[in-house]
């Protein structure tokens, strides 16, 4: 079959479709700075409070090196870094995601060999095989990620106390909490059902116990074709989700509710809690009245508290552009980011849950309810990190929206997911 140059494709698509805006992207370079310094370019997330202090500390430790940081907002960062990597003009160090599921996830980028192998780094030894599986592929480690993202139920402590409740430990208690909240004019769990909302995470929390907890080999069996969405405990995940929707556990009109509104409901105590990713706690706390405190707990899916698994996954991190002309320095930056010094900066400034041991670290009060379990074995990776392509994730996001809104059934959604998975 005739082959077409990917580089020219990338350039042409970016221009012709007029959507990528890659022309302002940084150049991977080893050029000198104004004072003859070696310049290292880094593309990361806009709003990351750790980026600047990390860079300052790295520059201090490496005299003669200047780091130029390009802050990219989400979700534009997905298309921009992807286009720049394919076009060959990406930064030396780029933000990437573990596993699969989006255009800058390492498994997707591995297909084009766009990331350098970091498996020789000392910090790799801190991670188990499950983590390494989503940090790279074919024995290569393609990224460093310094934080775990946890999906707990986050509760407004004062709101819980006001209705005389405590965090539920069984699914029956969850439904009871929904009734208690309603009778007090509140909602048990805030839910944002628009794109970018927390609605996928409720299913992830249920998946951890019902699918992974019941069969830890499910992901491997699905990959080998011996298991499917339709013929698995995913049916129970969706039936319990439906049960919660029908019981009025969530924000009314959730499918039209934005993530800001949902988080605001928890911050103000209009909702008792929210099931979402742990880094969001900081934003919720910032929006809350002074004196409001938050606590976390694993979200139960059965009536046996000991069966509850906690979804824990590696968060986004940094990879090294394989075409960087400054590859050794770029690797040194990622090593510093993953070092004890880098991790300390992150835990101090971003309230993250570090992915490797940090001397003297104690989890923030808000994460105390899940910290111990997050370090143990009763955890499950996020399912989307092992899905084979981004279409499964998009089908899940679109289909789950329709499921919550009552426009599609669990059977149809799971059949669509199987089709996307096998497509």
């Amino acid at each position, binding site marked *: 079959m005739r082959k077409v140059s990917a580089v020219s494709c990338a350039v042409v698509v970016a221009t012709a*479709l007029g959507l990528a805006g890659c022309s302002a992207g940084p150049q991977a370079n080893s050029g000198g700075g104004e004072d003859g310094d070696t310049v290292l370019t880094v593309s990361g997330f806009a709003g990351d409070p750790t980026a600047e202090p990390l860079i300052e500390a790295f520059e201090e430790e490496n005299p003669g090196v200047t780091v130029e940081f390009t802050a990219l907002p989400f979700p534009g960062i997905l298309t921009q870094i992807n286009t720049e990597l394919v076009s060959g003009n990406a930064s030396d160090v780029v933000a990437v995601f573990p596993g699969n599921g989006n255009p800058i996830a390492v498994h997707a980028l591995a297909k084009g060999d766009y990331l350098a192998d970091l498996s020789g780094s000392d910090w790799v030894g801190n991670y188990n095989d499950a983590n390494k599986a989503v940090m790279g592929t074919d024995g290569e480690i393609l990224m460093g990620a310094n934080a775990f993202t946890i999906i707990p139920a986050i509760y407004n402590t004062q709101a819980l106390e006001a209705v005389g409740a405590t965090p539920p430990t069984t699914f029956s208690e969850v439904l009871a909490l929904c009734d208690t909240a309603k009778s007090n004019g509140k909602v048990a769990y805030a839910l944002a059902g628009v*794109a970018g909302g927390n609605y996928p995470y409720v299913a992830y929390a249920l998946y951890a116990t019902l699918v992974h907890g019941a069969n830890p080999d499910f992901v491997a069996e699905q990959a080998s074709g011996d298991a499917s969405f339709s013929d698995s405990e995913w049916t129970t995940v969706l039936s319990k989700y439906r049960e919660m929707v029908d019981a009025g556990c969530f924000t009314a009109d959730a499918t039209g509710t934005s993530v800001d509104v949902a988080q605001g409901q928890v911050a103000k105590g209009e909702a008792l809690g929210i099931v979402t990713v742990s880094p969001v706690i900081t934003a919720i706390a910032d929006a809350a009245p002074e004196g409001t405190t938050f606590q976390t707990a694993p979200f139960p899916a059965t009536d046996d508290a000991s069966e509850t698994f906690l979804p824990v996954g590696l968060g986004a991190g940094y990879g090294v552009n394989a075409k960087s002309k400054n590859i050794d320095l770029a690797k040194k930056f990622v090593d510093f980011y993953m070092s004890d010094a880098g991790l300390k900066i992150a835990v101090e400034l971003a309230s993250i849950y570090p992915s490797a041991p940090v001397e003297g670290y104690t989890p923030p009060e808000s994460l105390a309810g899940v910290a111990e379990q997050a370090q143990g074995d009763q955890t499950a990776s996020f399912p989307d990190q092992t899905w084979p392509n981004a279409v499964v994730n998009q089908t899940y996001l679109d289909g789950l929206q329709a499921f919550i809104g009552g426009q599609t059934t669990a059977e149809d959604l799971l059949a669509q997911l199987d089709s996307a998975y096998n497509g």
Partner: protein
Amino acid sequence: MAIAPTVRSLAPRKRRPYRGFAHTVWWFVLPAAAFYVFAVVYPSVRGSLLAFTDWDGISPNPNWVGLDQFGRILTDPNALTGVRNTLLIAFAVTVIQNVAALLIALALNSRIRTRNILRVVIFAPVVITSIAVGFLWQNLFAPAGGINEALETVGLGFLQQNWLGNPDTAIWSVVIVVFWQFVGYSMVIFLAGLQGIPHEVLEAAAIDGAGPIRRFWSVVRPLLAPAITINVMLSLIGGLKLFDQVFVMTKGGPGGATNTISTLIYSNAFTLGRFGFGAALAVMLTIFVAVASIIQYRLLALQER
């Protein structure tokens, strides 16, 4: 007799500078034409060629797959929903926006005192970026947003809706926003057309006994035909290409119910890594716009005659 040779000798001298001028003009045009070919024609052609590949945005060597991607459009339920939504939005926006803009223009072409203020107020949304408009209306359409609050306040609480969360209302919410943003644009074009109609013609029609409706239909409408043509054309093309407002307000949701061809091009190419499929959708949209514009222009041009 002495004049004839002079005339003959002058004639070629007049033509020669003209040919030279024509040649000179082409040299002036060449840099711009070369830049146009480099910046527009070449990328567009090469981008269109992607529709015949299976490129995923990452793999270095995409395969040539012929017309497969176009065939997938006909079987992909999301693509079919996107095509249906695009046509619905384009048709609804074209009709509603132009009828309303014409009525507003007729009203504001009268001597009412506040006409200048009203013109500014109605035109104002045109100068706001579509992204800002999208965020503004996303908040207004929120379940606890301004629209539902206003309905409650005036005693119409029973009309409250989950505007953007219900597939049945979400698509029409988008239409309302596009109408709100661009009705002023169409109004201004209609106003310019109305102000070009001589008062004498209207007065003559009135003296001949024509009432307001007859005057509009037999005098104003034919003379306004060029403005109608340009307005219908612009609103139809704008409706077919709609992206910003949908992307900001709903991201194509809920459940893909408000996806348009443009949002599908973006999500397929840049989120799902299906550049070939995205390019096929882009080629199809280009053909849609071209065909619709040609047919419409021909029909309206016939009317203008």
